[in-house]
């Protein structure tokens, strides 16, 4: 028996298949993860992401602290409400976690980190925050719903308070708005437009039911995984971990090298990897034939060997797709070892799908 979110009873009511995810009892699917996937690409779906960790960082030097803690640079955030995706590295340049941080006020940032990494993240952040006198709080009693898909925003506006709906409607992509205790970020993990809504746990069931009645389908972790894979988004613990640098995980675009004198944790090590020939690369794979690519299958590229980090079936493309870490990225062809046979696959640059459309 794992931890349960305040929406657990709703999942059971909708016949969810419940699985363990980082110590939480979470819905894998509510019947068909492929139908749930299509619903998000075509209309709207919702995910219970209440297991994720929300942290409040407060202090006069919170900007200085985050510029030390994160590989991306919060100084890029010029407007209040703007979000930034970043890796948090250890001294060896390995990824402790990937996260989103929101600029709330000059002395207040809100951070959302993964569920499975909760304990080590909080310990690391709290330790690093001491030198900057930044207070790290984990507010109790918050829940989170992600509403995703081309109709997600409209359907959300229909069921929330009018003032908040007007604010949300005016939010640009990757911005958040707040009204009282409710926080709405125009962010997500599916490659579709939509919101991630943080609100008090005692109000989350009402929102879930209202969205359901507005025609938003509950979606589980199964669809969440194939949606994020199609969208070219990494999963922590699978595509990267503390032994893997962001440069080896397809996340070089999230590292802010300028200004050169910003000495973020891990910089010295990944600076050496930068531009170096021996640095492995994370690429996308598409299987032309039948079958499904799976995590840890071996990949052969011009005699070198790599490995699939995330493999699955893409419901949108109707083919198997994957991320693979390979020694070099100089060709478009490779072979994958599947069930004892080597089969050809195509090397591509993710994402595979964005805003409902194939892009490979």
């Amino acid at each position: 028996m794992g931890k349960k979110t305040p929406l657990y009873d709703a999942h059971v009511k909708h016949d969810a298949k419940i699985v363990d995810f980082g110590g939480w009892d979470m819905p894998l699917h509510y019947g068909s993860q492929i139908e749930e996937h299509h619903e998000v690409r075509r209309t709207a779906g919702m995910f219970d992401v209440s297991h994720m960790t929300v942290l409040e960082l407060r202090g006069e030097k919170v900007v200085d602290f985050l510029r030390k803690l994160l590989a991306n640079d919060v100084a890029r955030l010029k407007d209040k409400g703007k979000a930034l995706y970043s890796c948090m590295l250890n001294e060896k340049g390995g990824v402790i976690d990937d996260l989103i941080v929101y600029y709330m006020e000059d002395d207040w940032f809100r951070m959302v980190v993964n569920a499975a990494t909760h304990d080590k993240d909080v310990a690391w952040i709290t330790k690093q925050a001491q030198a900057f006198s930044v207070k790290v709080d984990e507010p109790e009693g918050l829940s989170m719903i992600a509403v995703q898909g081309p109709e997600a925003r409209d359907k959300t506006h229909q069921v929330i308070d009018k003032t908040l709906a007007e604010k949300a409607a005016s939010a640009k992509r990757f911005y958040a708005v707040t009204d009282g205790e409710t926080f709405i970020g125009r962010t997500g993990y599916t490659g579709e437009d939509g919101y991630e809504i943080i609100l008090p746990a005692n109000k989350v069931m009402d929102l879930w039911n209202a969205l359901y009645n507005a025609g938003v389908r509950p979606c589980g972790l199964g669809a969440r995984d194939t949606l994020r894979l199609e969208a070219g988004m990494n999963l922590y613990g699978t595509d990267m971990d503390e032994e893997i640098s962001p440069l080896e995980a397809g996340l070089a675009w999230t590292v802010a090298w300028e200004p050169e004198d910003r000495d973020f944790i891990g910089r010295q090590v990944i600076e050496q990897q930068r531009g170096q020939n021996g640095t492995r690369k994370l690429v996308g794979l598409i299987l032309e034939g039948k079958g499904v690519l799976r995590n840890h299958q071996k990949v052969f590229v011009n005699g070198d060997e790599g490995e699939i980090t995330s493999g699955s079936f893409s419901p949108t493309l109707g083919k198997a797709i994957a991320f693979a870490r390979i020694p070099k990225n100089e060709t478009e062809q490779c072979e994958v070892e599947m069930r004892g046979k080597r089969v050809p696959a195509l090397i591509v640059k993710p994402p595979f799908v964005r805003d409902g459309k194939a892009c490979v």
Partner: protein
Amino acid sequence: MSNVPANLKYTKSHEWIQDMGDGTVNIGITDHAQSLLGDLVFIELPEVDSEVSAGDECAVVESVKAASDVFTPLSGTVIGVNEALADTPELINKDAYGDGWLMKLKLSDNNELKDLIDASAYEEVAAEDH
């Protein structure tokens, strides 16, 4: 609890067998098996007219979660396969005992039917699996 029709025979490896009474059988995977696998996405079936022996791996059903071999519990000649599964493998998820059938066999040894288990025995197998 999964659906286990009483008129069918079963194997411990989650196949169902419908004895047509004329020396032929239909074979598929059980509702319990499809529920464990999740959404099916690729089905590999044997060639029509091929000879199979009891215990042979004769098909592969692959879901978003895993690939699984299907074993024929009976020997004989494949006289038909469910071509619809190539484009709509989800028929197995929706109707494992009907539209989601895998293949038809003409038996070479009717005595092998005695080795199959009945619905109540299969229900016990499926219950242990949880």
